[in-house]
């Protein structure tokens, strides 16, 4: 039982990060039909910028804030310089562009920062709590609560504010949104910036546990995509559910089956979902008119 809980805790922690990445994917995908492969780099930037800003002498909370701002700017630039100009290109072209952006950002991080692994101090110390016989790091709770808080804030934004509703409208039908006067291009840009922000926060929260490194973006992006697919691409709550589920699946298979192939779980999930239920757990099917 203790072992089961142990795996569950670590699965939920890392799953919360996947949920954030998946949520970012979904936000951008919904408003623009773009699968943003650079999503993982937002998480990477959150952690790495904080580490290096703190090392440069900036107090930690400010460093974190700076990291979020920097990542949001990167997200905006990504949209303006790489996505907007390619509007109208085929989905595959767009995916390759975002892959290019991800490679570019990775290269920049390796050059500007370094290639080592870095950590951030835990918020509430390193003493693990004991729950049901299993060890639970306080930072895990920070991650989980942080993610839950961000999901809640995002939900409030989308449903209560006018801009948020405009975003939902753009996601539902871009042409119609434009026809009622919504600046869809700005909305898409905003979705990139919000996704960047939530990615960065995720990176900052998780760095004490998972460490951060210039290279973590790719795997995170792929796993986040797997999570989004699992939950049903286009469904924000599905993305969160998919992320948590993927994290749990990874942890349990690493614990009970093989830890070597832990990373393979996400890819097996992708393939299984695509073959058996392409619309994921909570997605809906679209009918194509000929």
């Amino acid at each position, binding site marked *: 039982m203790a072992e089961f809980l142990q795996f569950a805790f670590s699965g939920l922690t890392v799953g919360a990060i996947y949920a954030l990445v998946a949520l970012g994917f979904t936000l951008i995908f919904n408003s623009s039909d773009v*699968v943003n492969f650079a999503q993982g780099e937002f998480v990477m930037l959150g952690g790495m910028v904080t580490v290096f800003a703190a090392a440069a002498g900036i107090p930690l909370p400010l460093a974190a804030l700076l990291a979020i701002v920097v990542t949001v700017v990167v997200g905006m630039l990504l949209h303006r*310089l*790489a996505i907007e*100009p*390619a509007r109208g*290109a*085929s*989905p*595959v*072209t767009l*995916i*390759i*562009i975002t*892959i*290019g*952006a*991800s*490679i*570019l*950002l*990775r*290269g*920049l991080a*390796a*050059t500007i920062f370094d290639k080592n692994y870095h950590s951030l101090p835990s918020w509430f110390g390193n003493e693990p709590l004991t729950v049901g016989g299993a060890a639970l790091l306080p930072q895990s709770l920070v991650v989980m609560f942080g993610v839950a808080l961000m999901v809640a804030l995002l939900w409030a934004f989308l449903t209560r504010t006018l801009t948020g509703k405009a975003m939902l409208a753009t996601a539902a039908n871009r042409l119609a949104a434009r026809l009622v006067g919504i600046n869809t291009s700005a909305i898409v840009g905003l979705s990139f910036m919000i996704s960047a922000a939530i990615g960065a926060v995720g990176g900052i929260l998780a760095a004490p546990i998972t460490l951060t490194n210039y290279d973590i973006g*790719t795997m995170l992006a*792929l796993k986040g*995509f*797997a999570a989004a*697919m699992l939950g049903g691409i286009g469904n924000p709550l599905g993305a969160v559910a998919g992320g948590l589920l993927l994290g749990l699946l990874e942890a349990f298979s690493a614990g009970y089956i093989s830890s*070597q*192939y832990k*990373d*393979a779980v*996400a*890819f*097996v999930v*992708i*393939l299984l979902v*695509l*073959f058996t239920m*392409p619309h994921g757990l909570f997605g809906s099917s679209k009918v194509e008119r*000929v």
Partner: protein
Amino acid sequence: MRQILKNPLWLVVGLAIIVVVLPLFLPSTYYVRVAALVFINALAVLGLNLLMGFAGQVSLGHAGFFGIGAYAVAVGPTHLGIPTWASLICGTILAAFIAFVVGRPILKLRGYYLAVATLGLGMLIAMIVSNEGAITGGPNGMPVPRLVLFGWRVFGPMTWYWISGLTLVIGVWVAVNLVESSTGRAFRAIHDSETAARVLGVNVARYKLTAFVLSAAYASVAGSYFVLFDGFVTPDTSSFLRSIEFVVMAVLGGLGSIFGSIVGAAILVLLPQVLTVFHDYEHIVLGAIMIVFLIFLPAGLVPAAATFIRRRTA
């Protein structure tokens, strides 16, 4: 004259001439080596182009098949006692077989679903070769025994230049034949309108699978050559980055252009050689190239150049 030049077989002849004549212009074995690498990459990209440029599908995991060919000629002789030339053939058959089996369900997907599925496939292959250390030497790789043909030990840049050059010429010849045939037209039809292709009697699923299997075979042969030339194989023969490099080569040169595959391969192989200072910034340059080219020249260099020339001479 123009009508004669339009015959695509000129591409094959032209390439053969280049392959034969080029060594006269190469100052040292270093350049011969680079040329051989261009030919090997071009072979893989050619296969990918048949899939992406002609049949209109996408594969972001093609390095997986490259890696299968690579590890086949390492594992075959070392662990199974199969002579290298036979291992190469077996590797190609294995890659084609995996493509056949996985291709059936995967090719039912479209657009980014297909892209991510192939990406997942490529990564799974990369993970397997990295993890199964006992057979594959794990993350550090393993040595590849040299090819021995009828007692003659095949090694050296010049030898591999000729082997890869000849294979590329054959590969291009096969590709040209394919494109001009009923199968090639079916591929292109599927690319432009699957629905129309269907109602005209084209068994779309079968042809997509054919393109996938063919491209896997091309990649596998290229992968085998790559590591036989090098003498060593590591898991990054099937890495995600390599898959992306192949795609960039194909897109850069021009999807749907056979000549473009060679141009694209040449550029991406030569770039790090020519701009040695860029080695540290390799990723930055690669990423930047991808973004800029796909925004401004999505058709690729060769088609863009062809349009430019056509407009000038019209």
